[in-house]
């Protein structure tokens, strides 16, 4: 097992290298000029060109890429073209809001979606099943920003239960931290819940038709034990897989959610950096996201062994 983990962690290095080359190349060929944005609309073309030179943007691709790779290998993701702040500092500033948002989203999603999927499978064809699947379809269909606006209008603006926007660090109190994140988490989690609920239902339906479930019933096991002890554990592998795959859509959704609720997270940092063509920040954030994604997939693979002892690495 340990050797497997080491192999997988080592395998992230070529993955990261490919991602780095891909992102750098993409940004190099993409139109847009940070010098023009820094200079502002009133600047002359000559001024913009001078700024480009001062930023080193006139250097050949290979020189820029080599210099960036060397810095990354030395643990330096570079400095923002605009703020002059180190990219690592900017990521560090933003990581807590994004991690908090994802953690609460994950907690809410799993808490609601798995029981919902299990109950829908158990009550297949009944009104409960249909309601659960309508909810699931809605979750897929309604865009995150629409859900966000509706939630903000009802719970923040009309009822005044929670703030409309912003983020309170957890060090300043768990309650304000949670109140700031509850609406964005629901908005972001809806599609995730829908995805997990549907997979859980489908997998549970398959498992519930297995012989060993019938045997468990014959031996007098209670419904709760059959559903949550015997069936769910055996249905867990596909569910964990979809939780891992869904993580990518969670990252994508965080970009929109953080913008709608003005949360200073990594999603907004990415969007702002792309709009301004702040190359070092874009490269740093994408590299970090890809690393996290690889780690999440590794965690999913390791969880397989927990739910299915037959799986060995």
């Amino acid at each position, binding site marked *: 097992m340990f050797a497997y983990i080491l192999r997988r962690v080592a395998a992230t290095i070529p993955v990261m290298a490919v991602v780095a080359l891909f992102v750098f190349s993409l940004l190099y060929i993409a*139109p*847009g*000029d940070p010098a*023009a*944005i*820094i*200079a*502002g*609309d*009133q*600047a*002359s*073309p*000559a*001024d*913009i060109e*001078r*700024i480009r*030179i*001062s*930023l080193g943007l006139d250097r050949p691709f290979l020189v820029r890429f080599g210099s960036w790779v060397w810095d990354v290998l030395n643990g330096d993701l570079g400095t*923002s073209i*605009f*703020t*002059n*702040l180190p990219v690592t500092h*900017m990521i560090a*500033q*933003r990581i807590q809001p994004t991690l908090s948002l994802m953690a609460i989203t994950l907690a809410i999603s799993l808490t609601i979606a798995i029981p919902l999927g299990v109950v829908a499978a158990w009550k297949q064809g009944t009104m409960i099943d249909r309601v659960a699947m309508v909810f699931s379809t809605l979750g897929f269909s309604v865009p995150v920003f629409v859900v966000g*606006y509706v939630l*903000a*209008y009802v719970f*923040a*603006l009309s009822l*005044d239960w929670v*703030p*409309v*926007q*912003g983020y*309170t660090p*957890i*060090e*300043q*109190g*768990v*309650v*304000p931290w949670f109140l700031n994140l509850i609406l964005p988490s629901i908005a972001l989690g809806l599609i995730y819940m829908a995805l997990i609920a549907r997979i859980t239902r489908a997998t549970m339906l398959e498992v519930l038709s297995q012989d060993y479930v019938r045997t468990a019933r014959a031996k007098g096991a209670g419904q709760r034990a059959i559903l949550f002890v015997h069936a769910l554990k055996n249905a867990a592998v596909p569910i964990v897989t979809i939780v891992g795959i869904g993580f990518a859509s969670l990252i994508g959704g965080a970009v929109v959610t953080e*913008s*709608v*609720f*003005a949360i*200073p997270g990594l999603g*907004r*940092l990415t969007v*702002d950096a792309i*709009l*301004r*063509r*702040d190359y070092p920040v874009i490269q740093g954030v994408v590299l970090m996201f890809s690393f996290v994604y690889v780690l999440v997939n590794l965690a999913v693979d390791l969880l397989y062994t927990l739910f299915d002892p037959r799986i060995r690495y």
Partner: protein
Amino acid sequence: MKRRSFLASTAAVGAALATPRIAVAQNTKVLKFIPQANLSSLDAVAGTQYVVRNAAVMIWETLYGIDANQVPHPQMCEGHTVNANFTDWTFTLRDGLLWHDGEKVTSKDCVASLTRWMARDTMGQRIKASMESLEPVDDKSFRLRLNKPFPKMLFALGKSNAPVCLMMPERIAKTDPFKLISEYIGSGPMKFNTAEWVPGSKAVFEKFAGYKPRPEKGEWLSGGKIMNFDRIEWIIIPDAATAAAALQNGEVDWWENPISDVVPLLKKNANLNIDIGDPLGNIGSFRINHLHPPFNDVRARKAVMMALSQTDYMQAVAGDDTNLWKTCDSFFTPGTAAYTEVGGELLRGPRDYEGAKKLLKEAGYNGEKIRLIVATDVAITKAEGDVTADLLAKIGMNVDYVATDWGTTGTIRAKKDAPSAGGWNIFHTWHAGADCINPAPYTALDAGGDKAWFGWPKSDAVQKGIADWYDAPDAAAEKKALEDTNKASFDNVTYIPTGFFLQYTSWRKNVSGVVKAPFPVFWGVSKT
């Protein structure tokens, strides 16, 4: 551990965590403000973004400062002496000026700051071109000698147009003028809190205890900048609906530029004030590339102008609220001394599509593709671009509508290549009315060919008008120069003004002292 003691200790930990740790003392006076855009950098000399300028004028000060009538008054300066022909200037700093790090402001700092600013600003470049020397006389005075009169010196030093002539400590001012500074030490009424800066989310300014306001009443960049807040927090909210909700909910106190879509909602809220923010507004711009056919022929440019309806553009940009826009047969800002309609006849009266078609034919237009670059991520340029696509189709032009973002527009518009080789024919933008009050800050008016702004218009008559304005000894001569410039700009069709529009600002009713200005003026504002 027993169950009860476990529960008790858990509850205690929970309560401790749930109690907010107050990061800012409770009696601290805080103003929460939503700026027009993200504050992504903080150098208003190297960059000309308005949002940067707006933040910078809290941190740094100018030697002179303009009032609401664009008249410069001494600000960091106690005063100056000048000879009769405006070539020998000596400036003296007022007492008690301190940098935010506690050091005294000296003439050496000012000389370095002026030198950096002169490299970037058009007025500064004119001063530099005729400068014989700029040197400290003593710690409080410095002397600037020119070989040509420069009567507009005080306006240049005190204007609010970017690049603003901001004074910085010598070590910071020695930064390459084409590189952004990374240390934000000024002598203005507010200090920048670098530790709390989260670009894209929040910027914090704290009252500078060592600041001594001037005794005069504060007005725009001049007079006593009395701050009634210990902290001003800029909360960047990119989504307009969220910003509107935050303002209505009292989570923020002031929103600089609400978009027109949410204005009716804000007007209905009894807790909010809403009014025109910047009385100098903006002038929409139909920018033409003068280098390539068909618009390298003035007849083609005039053909578009005779068909262009500013009303169409303004309705698309600002909606039906006629308090927010008007047509503007001028390159200069309505309501200011510079405004003149001389030469603007072609923009007035019924639009002449047939005449435009005929003129295009005379200019040799033969159905070539017109590459129209439209930044669709900016509401104003998107609206302008859509109207233009329709207008060009009406006069028989073959439009290649390139939908892109503002960042990409910035790259494409800098290309002098032919449109078929990745260049462009037309793009849209707008110019702050404060930049169109005279030719000095008005880069878009310049018609110096290769060195002019994007589109590279060339007209000796326009350049003469601008030069005459610089040299004008009195108001009458200035007026004449502006009329000549306006007429020459229309004759040349340097660009086509698409109309004049204003924008609202909105603040909660417990906030008072908000004034109309081209930038948010925080001094004099208070909150109950």
